[in-house]
């Protein structure tokens, strides 16, 4: 594993030197891989306690970093990014979702999250005998449905095949894939597996054709974003993208390269980009051809800004 990390490091340095236009993307890949390994390490011990810790750390980070997790750490995001790479290698063009659908999906994620979170409560209210006399809190936390699990699920794709917290058993092989266990428990044993397999297929194929398709309505992303939407917390997230309207010629590059098809970077007139759709992957900042127009800022400090990337790029 160390050798692998070293090789990845060397590769990253080489690409860093060669190519200005995809530096950040490669840095992001390296961080994603490291995060993948770290999360693998945590989950390979036990399930429940690290999950809670993760949840706490995640929400604490959110205040400072916004949806940084989605763009830079999420293992499911890594899978979707690898799919993007595969598609690029096969020279297949991505499909673009219509803006309207994209926004409906974006708003709909709250609904999805609510359904997941509230179903156990509603079921318990309808039929309190089912799970004896467990109080509501215990039902939420340790009950049969584990609704909090959906907030952590993007972290477990193909990582913990042996753990029984999120296992999808297909033809004797245990796979772990986000949300599948939830789907199985929620739909019941008879249809559960079919739904789960269909879900896996749909996300994988969808992720191949449409960039980062799941992230557009991911319930975890929604929970992260909701922290940033309290009124009076205008300062959060500290990590954000900032635009200089005067330097912008509205060439539209930012809009096109965005894997989530966020329009706000293009539409908004300067200042801090206010949208919970953006996952701060900084692809737009990296590709913006006007020096200093887009900036990734932490508080008032610039982490990284758009530059003159005009060295011909050899990335494929």
């Amino acid at each position, binding site marked *: 594993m160390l050798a692998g990390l070293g090789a990845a490091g060397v590769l990253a340095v080489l690409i860093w030197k060669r190519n200005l236009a995809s530096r950040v993307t490669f840095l992001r890949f390296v961080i994603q891989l490291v995060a993948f390994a770290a999360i693998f390490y945590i989950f390979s011990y036990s399930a429940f306690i690290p999950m809670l810790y993760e949840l706490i750390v995640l929400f604490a980070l959110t205040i400072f970093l916004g949806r940084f997790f989605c763009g830079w750490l999420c293992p499911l995001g890594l899978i979707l990014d690898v799919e993007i790479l595969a598609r*690029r290698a096969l*020279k*297949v*063009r*991505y499909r673009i979702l219509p*803006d309207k659908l994209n926004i409906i999906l974006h708003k709909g994620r709250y609904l999805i999250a609510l359904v997941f979170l509230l179903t156990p409560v509603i079921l318990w209210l309808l039929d309190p005998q089912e799970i004896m006399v467990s109080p509501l809190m215990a039902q939420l936390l340790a009950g049969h449905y584990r609704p909090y699990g959906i907030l952590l699920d993007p972290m477990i794709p193909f990582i913990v095949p042996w753990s029984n917290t999120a296992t999808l058993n297909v033809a004797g092989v245990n796979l772990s894939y986000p949300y599948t266990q939830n789907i199985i428990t929620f739909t019941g044993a008879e249809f559960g597996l079919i739904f789960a397999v269909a879900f896996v297929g749909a996300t994988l194929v969808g992720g191949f054709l449409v960039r980062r398709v799941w992230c557009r309505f991911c319930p975890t992303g929604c929970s992260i974003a909701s922290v940033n939407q309290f009124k009076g917390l205008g300062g959060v997230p500290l990590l954000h993208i900032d635009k200089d*309207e*005067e*330097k*912008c*010629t*509205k*060439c*539209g*590059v930012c809009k*096109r*390269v965005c894997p989530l098809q966020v329009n706000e970077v293009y539409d908004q007139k300067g200042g801090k980009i206010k949208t919970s759709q953006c996952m701060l992957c900084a692809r737009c900042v990296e*590709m*913006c*051809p006007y020096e200093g127009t887009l900036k990734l800022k932490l508080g008032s400090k610039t982490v990284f800004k758009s530059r*003159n990337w*005009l*060295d*011909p*790029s050899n*990335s*494929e």
Partner: protein
Amino acid sequence: MKNETVERKYLPEMPRKEMDELRNTVKTASQKIIADNIEHMKKADPHRPEAMKYFDEMADLFGKRQKEIAAEKEKGKKVIGYLCLFAPTELIMAADAIPVRVNSGWYDTSKLGDRVVPVEVCPVIRSTIGAKMIELSPFLEQSDALISVLTCDGMTKLGEILGDTKIVWGMNIPRIKDSTQSLRFWNDEIKHMKTQIETFTGNKITRKNLKEAIETSHRATKAFRRLQELRKGNPVIMGRDAMLVNQAYTWDDKKRWTEKTEVLCDELEKRAQRKDWVCSPDTPRVMVTGTPMFWPDNWKLPTLVEEGNPQGIIVADEQCSGERILNDPIGVDEWSMDDMLNAMSERYLMASTCPCFTSKDGNEDRINWLLNKVKEWKIQGVIYYVVRGCMLYAMEYTRVKKALDKINVPVYYLDTEYTREDVGQMKTRVEAFLEMLNARIDI
């Protein structure tokens, strides 16, 4: 070349002899003007960079480059001319053809153009028509086909008029630049142009070729930006020299141009280290915006500014004959054919600050871009140059003035014609403006 027997719809039939006579007269005069302009540029800057010699050579429209293109044509290469910057030159390059811009800057031919179109029409159009009538412009004559982008009214009809003797492909550009449907439409136009160029040249535009072409123009943009960056500090190059360099790109070989510009930049960097300025650093820094100024004849304004008394220095311009040629690169995300074409259509449509566009907030990009330029290049005064008949630029003046008034930068509206008669009067006007700028600096 179209069949000569086809009836001409616009252009008059001229006897061959008269045509030749006229051409020779204008050509001789023009060669003299080119030499004269270059002489002036040399005199203005005693330590003119060595690398400018190459561009002087290129500046002779009837000289080296014409012969080169002729030689390439003999080898079977096609030449595709274009009238507006929105023509996708990368596609032309990818199809192994030579792109040249064919707009004309000859004063004398604009009088000839009067025979075809009324005097009220923009002189750039009239001059190009006149040049076609007497077959003066070497690049226009050499081009096998023309891409005419329907930007302003003049350009729309100019394509039609030139269609009398040339194959002309129109490209319909949407006038609203920030809506998805315009972009889709323009993208289709670009795709159509690709097939048209492919069938015409017989070369297929492959992914690899197009990528190479885009990278060539990236390198050129990089060199161009380096030159612009050097103009931000104390003046190390005369504005006219830089304008000529930029404009030479439209007819020069793109790779060679990039190399030579890099050499020029190296030299200028050394010059900046020596603190060998072309004029006193207190000289008012002027930006020119408005109607394009085409080499060779329409060079009177930069000459007047930089040789006036008091002197000014042009450190930036916002014209489609100048910095707009190369300012915007093509931002390709995935290097697949579709993505490259998409990126190209976005670059040509959305990044442009041509006043023929409008958008949700009017043509605000242009205003923002001007404000940014004023700030970054420390501009002290803006000359808004308009030739009579150039409606779009003239109409946008009020808005530009309001925006620049807010940041307290004086703008001067200078309207003129394709003629040498008003040089004296223009001199007075320009010098008065420069005098005023000087006074402001003293305070």
